[in-house]
């Protein structure tokens, strides 16, 4: 899932204070699970903004609503007419949601209500951990299922640096050293000898260094097109 955390309310206030009619727009999937931007959090932010507005003597209308996902139009299309009645949308979806919505709201700005951090898992309630950086060319089969790109502070590909100490990363005692974990895990799996090989410099163009990425699944697009044709013909709409 995508993990984010709420922006400080003072920062949000600075962003929105000059607008008159604001919609705090939540997203009920990933960011709801990490308690950053679901319906509940959108409601809280809206309340805090109303309080702040009255404290500062600013005339401002702040409402909130939410949909299941900001990253697929079918979820927000039904509420779009209402959304477009505001002069600012403060989206508490992840950055993907903010971008996606922003491309579709014409002259109405969409501002971010949260800081989107990473793709992560929930090892225990209230804790979120980054485990993959979406590099576009997965090598987990060579590193014991533990990602050196997302989890090593230097994205090293050929083993630990000299900074590992008692299994922790040189950056902080609170951070596991990914390479320590990889070596221990591969020992357990009996595949340590795989690490003897020198991995050559990577082609980072599959990662974000190649510009924004797009995955297009032709078989699904072909299927959708065919289905579309069928319904259109059935409905007598064709031509």
């Amino acid at each position, binding site marked *: 899932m995508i993990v984010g955390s709420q922006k400080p309310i003072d920062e949000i206030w600075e962003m929105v204070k000059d607008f008159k009619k604001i919609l705090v727009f939540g997203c009920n999937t990933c960011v709801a699970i990490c308690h950053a931007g679901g319906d509940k959090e959108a409601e809280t932010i809206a309340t805090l903004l109303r309080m702040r507005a009255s404290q500062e003597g600013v005339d401002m209308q702040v409402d909130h609503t939410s949909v299941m996902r900001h990253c697929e139009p079918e979820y927000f299309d039904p509420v779009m007419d209402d959304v477009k009645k505001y002069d600012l949308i403060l989206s508490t979806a992840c950055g993907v949601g903010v971008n996606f919505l922003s491309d579709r709201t014409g002259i109405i700005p969409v501002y971010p209500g949260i800081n989107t951090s990473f793709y992560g898992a929930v090892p225990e309630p209230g804790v979120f951990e980054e485990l993959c950086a979406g590099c576009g060319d997965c090598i987990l089969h060579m590193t014991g299922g533990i990602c050196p790109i997302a989890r090593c502070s*230097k994205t090293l590909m*050929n083993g630990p640096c*000299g900074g590992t*100490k008692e299994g922790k990363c*040189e*950056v902080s005692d609170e951070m596991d*050293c990914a390479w320590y974990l990889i070596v221990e895990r591969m020992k357990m799996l009996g595949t340590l000898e795989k690490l*003897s090989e020198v991995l050559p410099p990577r082609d980072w163009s599959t990662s974000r260094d190649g510009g924004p990425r797009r995955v297009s699944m032709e078989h699904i697009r072909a299927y959708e097109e065919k289905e579309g044709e069928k319904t259109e013909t059935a409905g007598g709409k064709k031509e």
Partner: protein
Amino acid sequence: MKSGSNLERVILSGQPAVTAELGPPMSADGHEVVKKAQLLKGNCDAANVTDCQTAVVRISSIAAAAIAFQQGLEPVMQMTCRDRNRIAIQADLLGAAAMGLKNCLCIAGDHQSFSAAGRLKGHPGAKNVYDVDTCQLVSIMKKMRDNGLQEGGDTLEIAPKFFIGASWTPMGDPIDFRPVNLMKKVNAGADFIQTQGIYDIEGFRSQMEKIRNMGLHERTAILGGIIVPRSGMMLKYMDSSVAGVSVPKSLIDRMMKAKAAAGDDKKKARQLQEGEGKKITVELIHQVLETPGVRGVHIQAIEWESAIADIVKAAGLYPRPNIPAE
């Protein structure tokens, strides 16, 4: 001969090699580099010029190395993977070679968070690069030198001929992987290795036994790292906080005793500790050089370059061999 550098010639001659370290200043003070180069010249076969060590902004390794070279001190330019992508790395290597530099040590580099330590603000918010890692950097340099090719495959009419070095932390975690770590650097093309500072001779010797069994000592020249202790506090700090370094209690006790002997006299306490530190260094140099498979020492007197001359003489490693270029 791969590079024809003085360091390479000394190593090939079979005599124990001595490298030292020159830390460039945190301002545009070229005189400081000249001063340090003069202190080291003649007392080592080559001196590492650090590359923004602990991620603190200093005169760049390549520029400081060029100044040292003009002063007649052979530099080992250090290059971290932290601050440059493969384009900048190769461009710098071409430039360094064009200026006559012949040794380069590849290292990952300290994380940028290290820069904000003590009284320094540093640049902990910097973005690090790590386009390539140390092994990959070594292999790029080798490909340039031996195949006359850039990493991407374009040809180099004149190839940069570097004597390629890499660092190694023999006693780092996970300890049983460290020999493999060294093997990878050697397989990638490291001609020489400088190790992390060694105080625990027994631990080092047991790792070196594994290295000899793997035959790595014959494929690369291992220079044992010695960090000159300057005070008891420094040794304590290194023991508790520096990764891959453990300091036997007996050495810490010796330094603390030297300090105590001065009573309240701070100046004397410093002198006594520095004297003891040099003595310890000389002992360590001998113990490291007696370890089979070791071909030299890398002596780091951090921000204390003036100590090197005494140490090298006291260790019986002076004068340095003069092996003319072919």
